[in-house]
């Protein structure tokens, strides 16, 4: 392998690493807000892969798909954080361990 590895390689690496980091945070962190941030990380990992493929193979569909992903991400954050605020009003905390009413 010659040293400055290709951009494709790095894109895949960053994408996978970011997705794994997001997943790690999503599973391990207890702060609901940080968990939502980790979801954003995972979405962005996928976005990077989409843009990489779209630009490399010169197909515009990937970028159009990213446009939709961005919108959905924005809406998800807006509603998600609204729910977090509501939960905080009811329980006085954002620690995920305290939200157990659905556990039975």
């Amino acid at each position, binding site marked *: 392998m010659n040293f400055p590895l290709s951009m494709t390689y790095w894109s895949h690496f960053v994408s996978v690493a970011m997705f794994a980091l997001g997943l790690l945070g999503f599973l391990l962190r207890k702060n609901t807000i940080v968990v939502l941030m980790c979801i954003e990380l995972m979405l962005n990992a996928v976005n990077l892969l989409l843009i990489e493929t779209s630009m490399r193979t010169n197909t515009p569909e990937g970028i159009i798909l990213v446009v*939709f992903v961005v919108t959905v991400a924005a809406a998800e954050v807006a509603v998600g954080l609204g729910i977090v605020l509501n939960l905080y009003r009811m329980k006085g905390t954002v620690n995920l361990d305290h939200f157990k009413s659905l556990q039975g």
Partner: protein
Amino acid sequence: MRETLFMVFSLFTIAAASGVVLSRNPVYSAFSLILSFFGLSGLYLLWGSTFMAMIQILIYTGAIVVLFVFVVMLLNLQTVRENSPNLLFLVGAAAAVWLFSLMILRVLTRAIPNKAVEIPTDQLRAISKLLFTRYLWPFEVLSLFLLVMIVAIFAITRTQEIPQGGEKK
């Protein structure tokens, strides 16, 4: 040149992304998130997609993270106590590491052309045209979707006003 820059931005992005996960204080997490999105937009730029790079900064960094920071500051949480490692914690970590190694193995073993690819210039006009012709219906649905979101958010936050009047029991 381009490859080296790409490597620098890649490492920067990953470092910032790990900052999001590892910071105890949610404010630092949000700050790392900004840096990570900034790095990502650099990567998009290096791939030649200037439009998406700008949208990344405009929407993600300029609006979505603002919302995160707002909520963190409005609630003014001191650090939430993270649980000490228990079984569930270990299973979660193992799952993430397992998935990571699986994916990275796939990336490494697949023959990726390790040569500089021809970067096409961003066919911005062509993409926009496509968005408003072939993908017009999804695009209009997007608008409807955002409208529904506005209503939904108002519905969620309105219930908040009830305990606010008479202080919490």
